[in-house]
């Protein structure tokens, strides 16, 4: 017969001691350290750019032209042509890549299923994500710029090629998260597939789709390499994004920052701060818009 040993024990509700607790502590510390490590360079970048660029920024720096030569002292001319060029080229790239990317992702997730075409497109878009941006620039240079000359449009093509796979991938992941029960609910009311997609699936995924598209836009807005081949280096405002050399903020940062002249370096910092601010404003606006559309998803 087994002997019943224990008198009823007080339950020990304190945190377990030993290896388990140590492990827990180590992991917590690791996470905090990782967070700090991530935050330091981010904060440092922001701090440096603001510290060095803020003094240059003025209304005329943002809006007026022409862009002065590299030897000009600080305070002469402005980045107006580059600000306009960045906005035009990035917007044009987004207009081309975002709808195409979203439609592509809709095909992959809603229509393609497991067929070979969908698998092939999905695979190629993943491959495309890994293509270095300078290769995209070279590609557009070869097939477009050599025939039609430098233009903002060529830059938009290159940036669009960069954005496309990011938009496809992020949208695809968002569509996959839409619960199937919503699709079935719509089908059960006699909706066609296109109707289900447009009225239920896309609205349900809208917030994530917008976030993904924004990441792609922000990444493209900061690309320098593809623009070098495609848009040239105009110093005057070129309002026609479809023809003639243009310029953009990343190109100006690149052109000014590697100069020995203080005025040029200051303009480089100013352009950097302007670019960051543009992306930031874009993010905020898009968040507000999305929050308005997605108010029923809570």
């Amino acid at each position, binding site marked *: 017969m087994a002997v019943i040993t224990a008198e009823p024990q007080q339950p020990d509700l304190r945190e377990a001691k030993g290896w388990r607790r140590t492990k827990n502590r180590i992991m917590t510390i690791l996470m905090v350290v990782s967070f700090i490590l991530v935050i330091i360079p981010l904060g440092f970048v922001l701090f440096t750019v603001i510290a060095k660029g803020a003094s240059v920024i003025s209304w005329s720096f943002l809006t007026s032209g022409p862009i002065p030569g590299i030897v000009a002292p600080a305070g002469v001319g402005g980045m107006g042509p580059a600000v306009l060029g960045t906005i035009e080229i990035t917007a044009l790239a987004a207009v081309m890549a975002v709808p195409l990317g979203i439609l592509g992702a809709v095909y992959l997730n809603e229509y393609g299923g497991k067929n070979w075409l969908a698998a092939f497109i999905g695979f190629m878009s993943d491959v495309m994500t890994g293509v270095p941006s300078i290769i995209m620039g070279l590609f557009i240079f070869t097939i477009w710029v050599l025939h039609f000359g430098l233009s903002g449009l060529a830059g938009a093509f290159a940036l669009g090629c960069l954005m496309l796979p990011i938009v496809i991938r992020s949208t695809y992941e968002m569509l996959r998260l839409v619960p199937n029960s*919503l699709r079935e609910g719509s089908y059960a*009311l006699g909706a066609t597939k296109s109707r289900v997609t447009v009225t239920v699936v896309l609205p349900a995924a809208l917030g994530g789709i917008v976030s993904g598209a924004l990441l792609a836009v922000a990444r493209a807005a900061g690309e320098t390499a593809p623009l070098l081949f495609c848009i040239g280096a105009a110093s005057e405002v070129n309002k026609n994004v479809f023809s003639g050399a243009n310029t953009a903020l990343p190109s100006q940062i690149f052109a000014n920052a590697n100069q020995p002249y203080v005025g040029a370096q200051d303009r480089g910092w100013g352009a950097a701060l302007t670019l960051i601010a543009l992306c930031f404003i874009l993010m905020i606006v898009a968040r507000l818009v999305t929050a308005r559309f997605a*108010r029923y998803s809570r």
Partner: protein
Amino acid sequence: MENPEQNSLADLQAIPESAPRQKVRLPEPAALREPEQADVGTGAPVFELKDVSIYYSSFRAVTNVSLTIYKHQITAFIGPSGCGKTTVLRTLNRMNDLIAGARVEGEVRYHGEALYGKDVSPIAVRRRIGMVFQKPNPFPKSIYDNVAYGPRINGIRGKSELNEIVERSLRQAALWDEVKNRLGASGLSLSGGQAQRLCIARTLAVEPDVVLMDEPASALDPIATGAIEDLMQEIKNQYTIVIVTHNMQQATRVSDRTAFFSVLVNPESDTRTGTLVEYNQTDRLFGDPQDDRTKAYVTGRMG
């Protein structure tokens, strides 16, 4: 729009409106019928299934189902898990078409028309045969837009007409009083029972001929369940209802007829296939089950 049968929205091939309206006596020996049950089995057949088997790719999920579902009755499907009752239910409005590899063999007739016929559009079928799912699945839209969704995709745009439909459907689903002051609120802000009634209202808004319910109350508390059961009784003179339930008390409370499904285990391949064991008027199926498996199940000795 007053009679679901005349729902002009569907372009399902001409459904013979006259023939099935004759009263059909059920093929049952009169001697077995107790007097108070005599009236239950009348009405035109809505669905007729003959030797139906359902496959997912090569796997046979359900086999050998033959039954007739009658107009303006509540028909319950009961049985243990994995017996194929939901699969059969989803066959009735071609929801299984959405699953790759799903295939139906045998004959499924809807008002005499072959439901899986060559020219039949599943979209048209589903406009007439609505479905309420096990888990409430309101769309991430406002309460109003949830209910107006079906009418809108059927081309109804008029504001006053939509208002009318929304109010009527929400009233039918016994939800109107709770939400009438916040029709603009998100459908996802409702509690589970309210959300399920919203889904029922959404289904009723397109005035279907048949409402299929897949365990509509399994996620709800007894009060919400009671509300939905009452609601089924109220709408059954306008709609034909088929309900899958795990809850035998629910089947006895709400249904006119009950089909008991069970599982056949194939010991060689270790696969399970659902089949229809017994189908009868509800009080007869529970009161005097003919098959031993039914008897064991309804008396609680199995499943």
